[in-house]
Every structure is written in structure tokens, then in C-alpha cells.
């Protein structure tokens, strides 16, 4: 008692000497009625609560932890309650691992469960170690519909409710499809590239000069081939880049896209390639796919719905493209024989497109600001 009195002076001063207190790390993912998660609990805490060191040598081995896995699951899951719409979501352990956090070794338990009712909110009650260590905290990361939320549980805040935005796969799909359409509409470089390739579709190059096609079907098939090969090509690179298989610096991609527009437009004025423009569409389509991918990346890809997002976005881009083509083709076919189309739209338009794209190239390649596209 006496020694404690004087030493207490030092102890107050040394209260900040502590190392990390007891925390558990709880990750829960809720999709519809399905619940899954991972719970990292310090072995030292589990040892205090249920006893892990069976041979009493002061060391906790993996074998000792393994022998107690059923006990760990029973003890911890009895202290975690999820409720949705007033009904329980029973949980069961699916796998056990180990991990090291900055303050020591943890038991890692993966678990799953199903709620009886899908609801707009989930209520989580956490009482792990509340009876033996009131300073213990549970750090929660809750994932739902591509969003993540965090929460801290303590005995004072043992029960918390989290709103869930109901985002169905269909909603997600349409969200991304809308973004795809929107990107084509505001992505002038893609529109101008496509137009540069489509402008000659209603003309034929014969005897060193352009003449109007005589019938609609050849013009239609020409457009069909170009649009299809552009689509296939950019879908390939969009998928590869979105899935992280290939990654290119955006400055390179954006400069290459500008170059593709310049070349496609100049090809109309000084024809080099005329018969097989679909090959050009395919080749440059690969480049444009990387451009789409960067947009998709900026939107944020939900890891749990990667495919939905990818397909939705891609189809959105196609829908946007089709809208442009279906507006362009009838008008171009109707005007194909006029001076207006052949001189002003075709030659004049192509020159204008190539000069705008030339400026984009300079801006993007040399990081300068000349015009705002």
C-alpha cells in the first residue's frame, strides 16, 4: 500500500505508455437476404475468455487454436446478432484462418448466414467480451450494394442499426448502361471517329474520285461492318482494362485516340484505305476501348457486381452508338448525291474533324490547353 502511494505519481504520468487495447475487426457483407463476413479476434482475448493454451506453456500454437475452433465459433457468434425486418439472421462459421495484426496474432473466422426477411435496415448487436473487458471495441466494416460503411461497437454502443439502400442487380445494370450512353454522347472523340468512318459509307471510291452509292443495302452493310468491328474491338480492350489485365497510361491512350480521329478523317480527303474501313475500325477500336475503361474506373467498379457493371456499361455504349448511326445513315443516304454532302459535309467535315482532333492530340500529348473539347 505504501509503495503504491508514491509510485502512483509516476503511474499517472505513464498512463500513455500502453500499447494497443483490445479490438476485433468485423467485416460484414449484406446482399439481399444473404450475409457473409469475416471476424478477426485477437488470440490473447480468446485465450482469456475461453482458454486456448491447453498445454500451459505460454505459447498458443495453430494446433491449439484448431482444437478450439468450434468453441471460438460458439462463443463469438453467440455475441453477434444480426436482425433484418425484426427477424434474426442466424450465422454459422465457414472457415478458420490466422492473421497477424500490428499487435499480435488473430483468429480469423469466416461466416455466412441468411436473413429471413429482406429489409431496408440491418440491426447489429455486438457484445463480444463486454462482460470481461468493457474497454474492448469491435470495429465494423459493413458492405452493401458496392458501398462500405464503418462503425465502432463498445458496451455503451452495443446495438446499432444501419440503413441499407436497396440496390438490385437490375438497377445497377441500368445505372451503368446509362453511364455508357452518356459517355458516348459527351465523348466527342468517339463520335467524330465513328462519323469519319461512316461518312464515306454512302459513297464509293472509283476512278480516283468519290461517287454516290446506287442502292441502300451496300451502304447499310458497310456501316454494319464498321460499327460491329469497332464494338467488338473496344469491348475486348474495355474488358481487359476494367478487369485489370492490361493497364496503359491514360496520356498515351488519349493521345492515340486523338490520332485515330485525325487519321480516319484525313483518309476521307486523301484516301489510302477505302475498301476495308472495318479493319481500321477494329484496330483503332482497340485503342478507344482503353478510353472507355478509364471512365468506368472513375465511376468505381463494385467488386461484387463487376460483370453487371461491365456488361451494362458496354451495352450502354452500344446503344449510344446505335442512336448516332440510326440518325446519321438515313440522312446521309438521302443527301449522298448532293454537292452539300459530297463537298461540304464529306470533305469540309472531314477536314474540320481532323483539325479539331489534331489540336486534341497536341493538347493531350504535350499536356497543353488550347481548346476545351
Amino acid at each position: 500500500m505504501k509503495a503504491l502511494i508514491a509510485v502512483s505519481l509516476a503511474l499517472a504520468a505513464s498512463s500513455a505508455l500502453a500499447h494497443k487495447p483490445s479490438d476485433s475487426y468485423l467485416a460484414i457483407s449484406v446482399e439481399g437476404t444473404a450475409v457473409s463476413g469475416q471476424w478477426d479476434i485477437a488470440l490473447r482475448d480468446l485465450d482469456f475468455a475461453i482458454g486456448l493454451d491447453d498445454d500451459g506453456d505460454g505459447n498458443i500454437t495453430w494446433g491449439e487454436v484448431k482444437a478450439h475452433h468450434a468453441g471460438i465459433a460458439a462463443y463469438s457468434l453467440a455475441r453477434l446478432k444480426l436482425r433484418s425486418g425484426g427477424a434474426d439472421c442466424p450465422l454459422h462459421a465457414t472457415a478458420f484462418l490466422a492473421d497477424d495484426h500490428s499487435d499480435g496474432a488473430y483468429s480469423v473466422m469466416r461466416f455466412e448466414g441468411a436473413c429471413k426477411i429482406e429489409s431496408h435496415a440491418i440491426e447489429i448487436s455486438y457484445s463480444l467480451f463486454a462482460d470481461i473487458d468493457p474497454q474492448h471495441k469491435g470495429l465494423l466494416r459493413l458492405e452493401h450494394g458496392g458501398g462500405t460503411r464503418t462503425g465502432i461497437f463498445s458496451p455503451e454502443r452495443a446495438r446499432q442499426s444501419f440503413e441499407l439502400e436497396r440496390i438490385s442487380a437490375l438497377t445497377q445494370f441500368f445505372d451503368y448502361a446509362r453511364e455508357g450512353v452518356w459517355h458516348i454522347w459527351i465523348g466527342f472523340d468517339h463520335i467524330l471517329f465513328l462519323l469519319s468512318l461512316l461518312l464515306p459509307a454512302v459513297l464509293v471510291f472509283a476512278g480516283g474520285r468519290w461517287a454516290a452509292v446506287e442502292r441502300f443495302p451496300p451502304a447499310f452493310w458497310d456501316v454494319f461492318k464498321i460499327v460491329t468491328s469497332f464494338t467488338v474491338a473496344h469491348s475486348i480492350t474495355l474488358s481487359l482494362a476494367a478487369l485489370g489485365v492490361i493497364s496503359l497510361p491514360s496520356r498515351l491512350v488519349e493521345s492515340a485516340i486523338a490520332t485515330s480521329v485525325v487519321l480516319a478523317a484525313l483518309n476521307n480527303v486523301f484516301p489510302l484505305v477505302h475498301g476495308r474501313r472495318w479493319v481500321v475500325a477494329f484496330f483503332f477500336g482497340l485503342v478507344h476501348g482503353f478510353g472507355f475503361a478509364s471512365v468506368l474506373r472513375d465511376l468505381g467498379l463494385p467488386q461484387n457486381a463487376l460483370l453487371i457493371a461491365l456488361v451494362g456499361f458496354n451495352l450502354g455504349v452500344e446503344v449510344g452508338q446505335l442512336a448516332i448511326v440510326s440518325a446519321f445513315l438515313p440522312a446521309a443516304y438521302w443527301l449522298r448525291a448532293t454537292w452539300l454532302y459530297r463537298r461540304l459535309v464529306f470533305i469540309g467535315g472531314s477536314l474540320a474533324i481532323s483539325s479539331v482532333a489534331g489540336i486534341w492530340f497536341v493538347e493531350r500529348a504535350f499536356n497543353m490547353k488550347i481548346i476545351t473539347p
Partner: protein
Amino acid sequence: MSTIRTYIIGTVTDWLRVFALASVAITGHAAPYVPKEDSLVLEHLPVRPNDPVARELRQLRAELTANPRKRSTAIRLAERYFSLANSEGDPRYVGYAQAALKPWWDLTAPPLDALVMRAILKQYSHDFSGARQDLAAATHEDPGNARAWSWRAAIDMVQANYEQARKDCLALRDIESDLYAVGCLAYLDGTTGKAATAYSALSEAFARGDDNSPELKVWVLTRLAEMSLRMGNTKQAEEHFRAAYFEPINDQFLLAAYADFLLDQGRPDEVMPLLVDWFRSDILLLRLALAEKALKAPKAAEHIEALRSRFDAAALRGDKLHQQEEARFNLYLLGSKEKALALAQENWKLQREPRDARILLETALAMNSPAAAKDALDWLERSGHEDPGLRKTAQQLKVLKP
């Protein structure tokens, strides 16, 4: 327990952390694994189950489980856990102690012994106002309670309420004699510009007592070392530090103060053997990393990364217990001056000891901002604190003033 092995395993796991994703996701980090061998040791327990301390704790816990409202058992168990928290530096034990006091924890007027114990646990978690309130109630109820008075003094010192601390020490002198009361006043005087007087009073009282416990010896010797430093006598300070170091107990406060002394003296190589087994303690790991950085030791990077992840974990938890250390970490190991200053200022709101003033002055100097250190400069003026290092930093700051 092989502390070296703990250290090595800790280091390896922290290397894994360095390689793992830098994100501070709440699940911690990237890769849980299934160990290949059952014999793999995952964790070392600080207290073995068959250790006499563990046996006593188990027995007390069993008694308390049988009768949770038996106050004498609850207080004894809380005391045991509290001293374990101090020797091991693990706040878990404070949680265990709090659990033992559960029937009295939320009462407005618990019995005296539970009230004092509750205050001691509250101050550990930096609930200084809650602790101070409990202690005021305790000394009001029992003016002869030496323990309550000495804890009052301790908290008043941490918060730089020197007038109040003097009253606490004087009240203590009326109850206790010699070393305890002298120690209390010397601690106060040594901080407030009378280091020489305090030094001779404390060393005389220390020499008179012959059956002092190692804990008490370490406490007095560490205070004597600090007072010597304030008087500018580094040789004498070192003698006291070394004498305290060779006492047969672990004291993290001593190790931290001794390591700081060696770092200030430009002798980082001597810090390494001192702290090599203390990887688990945040504040000692900070000193170790500072020494390693000064020596350009290869371990510096991984220890800095380990500290970073611990401070991140504390932030996730919402803890503000280590702001002084975090400020030092940011200033000297990361070079993030602005963040360091913000932390030092935040820390000053709660704790106002010389080392809290020091980091506030040093971060303000690093930011060329004397105004930012106004509170610490005022404190230095008001307290009359003598430390030459602090005074020099303050002078450098004042010169900056337009």
C-alpha cells in the same frame, strides 16, 4: 518467455504488413492464411497459465464469479490487474479490472474503496475529469485517505494545476510521513523551477529510508535523474538512470526517459540494446525507431511502418491516448510537420507535462510558428520550469517573433 523470439516474430509479421496492401481497411490487412503446421506458435502469452500470478488471478476470478458483489475480492482482483497493466503496458488488464468493478462502476456514490479504484482506472484511460471528480468525493468522505490524495496530486500535475497539486501534497504530508510526502512536493518543485531544492530534499529522504521497494527506488531515481537534467548536470542524471535501470523490475517510464536522455545526448547506439525486447510497447518502439533512424539501421523502415499501422489502428478505434508520441512520430520519423503540430496542440489540451510542452515547442519551431506554441511558452513562463533544452527551444521560437 523468450522475448527475443517474440521480437523476431513481431518483426517478421511487421515485414509482412509492409508488403501487404497499405490500405487501412478495417479488416486490418490483406492476407489471412492457414498455417501449414499445427506446431506453429502464433502467439506468446505474457503470463503463463501455471505462473503464480496467473494462479492467483484465476482463483480471484473464480471467487468473484461465485459472488460478483463481494467487494473485497473485486477490489483485490482490480488491484492485481491494474499493476499488471503497468508492468506489462497492456491496457487489456485495465478493462479486466473495470469488469471486476462492474457492480459499482455506474453508481453515483460507490463505497470509498471502489470509488478510489474506479478513479485510478479512469485516469488510465485519460478520463482525467471523471477521475478527479471521484477523487474529490473520496477525499471529502475520508480526508485521511493518502491514496486518494496522492492520485489527486498526480492528476493535477499532469494537467499543470500546480496550486492544487501543492494542496494535495500538503494534505498528504499531514497523513503520511517522509518519503511519500517529500516525494510529492519534490515532484512538484522539480517541475516548477526549484529543481535544486527538490533534488536535495528528495535524495536526503531517499537516503533515510532503507527498506524501499524496487518500484519506489526506480520512481525516486528516475525523478532524481530528471531533476539533475533540469539543473544541467547530465553526468549525475546518467548515474541515476543507470542505478534505476539495474533495479530488478521493468519500468517503461524509466526506459522511455533513459532512452530520451541517450537520444538527446547523441548516443542512439546505446538505445538499441536497452529497448530491443520492447517491440510491443508503442512508446518504446518509437524511441527504438528514432535511434535506428539516427544510425541508419536497416530495421528503421519496418519499425516506422509498424508504428504507422498502430497509430492508424488507434485512429480507427477513436483513441487519443498517444497523441504526444504520434506528434513525435510525425515530426521526426515521417517529416509531417503540420500533422505533428496539430497533434501536439490537441495533446496539450489534455496533458501538460514537460514532455508535452517539449513536443509542442519543437513542432512549432519546425513550422516556424511561435504563435502555435503560445500555450507551451506561457506554461514555461508561469511554471518556471528549468530544463535547458526546453528553454533553448523556447528562445529559438522567441527570436522568430517579428
